């Protein structure tokens, strides 16, 4: 990394950005009072329920929180495989 880009703070994220990212992550768990382990358990259970109705591409499953102001929203994204393969649970 050149001197100029070091002076300008390019190349690696500023410590301010690192602080902000860390805070946002830690506050999600503080606010909803859920540990990463519990989040993982929730994800597995959600996956279990949804899989009874759809074929889910498990590799693409994401369960996160989104924030708007001080409202926290649970967002589950589960890629569903094409209908031809969806015949379960009915």
């Amino acid at each position, binding site marked *: 990394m050149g001197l100029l880009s070091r002076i300008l703070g390019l190349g690696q994220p*500023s410590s301010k*950005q690192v602080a902000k990212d860390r805070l946002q992550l830690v506050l999600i768990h503080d606010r909803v009072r859920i540990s990463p382990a519990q989040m993982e358990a929730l994800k597995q259970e959600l996956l279990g329920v949804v899989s009874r109705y759809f074929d889910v591409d498990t590799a693409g499953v994401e369960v996160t929180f989104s924030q708007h102001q001080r409202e926290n929203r649970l967002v589950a994204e589960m890629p569903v495989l094409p209908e031809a393969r969806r015949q379960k649970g009915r």
Partner: protein
Amino acid sequence: MGRVITVTSGKGGVGKTTATANIAAALAAQGHKVVAIDGDIGLRNLDVVLGLENRIVFDLVDVAEGRCRVRQALIRDKRTPELFLLPASQTRDKDALRPEQMVEVCDQLREDFEFIVVDSPAGIEGGFRVALAPADQVVIVTTPEVSAVRDADRVVGLVEAAEKGPALLVINRVKANMVRRGDMLGPEDVQEILSIELLGMVPEDEAVVVSSNRGLPLVMDGAHPAGKAFSDIALRLSGVEVPMTDLSDDGSIWSRIVRFVRQR
């Protein structure tokens, strides 16, 4: 009827007492009748920051327990005649006061004062609950550091749960040069994370230490940047619209170049 403003933070050492002293002194200097209450029972400090420690006879716990009338415990600041202090007890502990006693004391003071500014102890336990109980408005003080912002976020949630929200935010000890070079959370970052209204930001200022050495609130002592920031905060609390001073931008060509390059 007076308004009760409780100043709190969660984390200790972020400048709660300094903020309380200066907001109260500024409101008084602006012509309002103000009483500052030290809610930190057992660890009182508002008296020394205001330079009134030698005149204490009775304290908040004496008033709450009926050993004296509230007027007997009030100390008038001779330099700012509209400013009074109701000191904490130094010999009792945090459990010496119940929330309903604090509400009762504040209700008596509402009749005579326009503003009652309560300095909350650090933490989120009993003492904080006592300071929160009488509040019409809560001011949360934080610094632009991860630990302080995290604790402030917890307090924002507790204030909302107690139906005392939305709280207002004061960001203290902002180091403009560190914000500029991307090594400190800027006021807009902290405000975005906490999502509560920004009441003011206070620059890091060595004069704060000097003023607490002397027991003379900054706002009484000339035109220091931090004193100006606290005066603006006091004006906003009394309903005057004052634009925020942009601390992160000194207007120099260098800071513009850095910002320009970063944005790309």
